[in-house]
């Protein structure tokens, strides 16, 4: 269950990141998405990466707690 959650979460980030990266490379123009609007999208990218790190950390704790819960259940059997 949990690893499924983690996979889906990671997939979501990879999807989003590749979307950003792909849209940044479109067309021959140099003034692409990442350079437009005062480069605000670069800030968006940085925030998303930091957020991804925090979520990955939360997911890791979640999995660890789940594992201990499972171990405890088996021990009690």
């Amino acid at each position: 269950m949990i690893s499924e959650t983690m996979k889906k979460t990671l997939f979501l980030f990879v999807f989003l990141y590749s979307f950003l990266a792909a849209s940044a490379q479109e067309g021959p123009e140099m003034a692409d998405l990442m350079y437009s609007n005062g480069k605000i999208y670069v800030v968006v990218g940085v925030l998303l990466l930091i957020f991804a790190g925090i979520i990955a950390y939360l997911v890791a704790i979640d999995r660890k707690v789940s594992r201990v819960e499972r171990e405890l259940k088996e021990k009690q059997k």
Partner: protein
Amino acid sequence: MRNWWKILAVALLIYTLVMGLTGKVPALAIVHETIRNLYFHVTMWFGMIILFTIGLVYSIRYLAGMKQEHDIIASEAIFVGTLFGTLGLLTGSLWARYTWGAWWTVDPQLNGALAAMLAYFAYVILRGSMDEEQKRARISAVYNIFAYVMMLIFIIIIPKFTNVDSMPPGKGGNPGFNTYDLDSNMRAVFYPAIIGWTLLGLWMMQLRVRIRRLKASGNI
């Protein structure tokens, strides 16, 4: 899918971060782009109130049934709520510095928020000061009901009935939420942001509750 709400939290917060920074906002005097703080600062307070309400419900349930499980949920909801409130105070102070020109102002809304937070800091300290489990659970549950009422009085009731020109947006003639309320662009980010941050808080709370349960089982 037991953990669908955690995925929902992440999805909503990604949406909040992207749209919060790049979405269309009304051009307003004084606040300018900082109006985007609505999605990050104000949502902390919404999340805090929801977490504290969970704390209140479980404190009452504890007093009704004296089940340790309810004490665990109540206290962890309050710990995460206190974290949200502290972040709300800090981000509010930073926002105030660059819109009103001061880190803190003598304002019923601001001092009320601070007083409400102090009531909950007192809860945390009160819990920490007692070793005996059942006594700690009972006393902190009773105190929590008091703290919740104080919180409502300080952050909702008193600011409403003071005639002082309050500085937070929407009060005392400042450009405010009445303007934003009409803006459907902002609403489309603000409401998902509230749900997203609140779900993230619930996730943190759930983790803490599970760790406490493991500890309570005595096998750790």
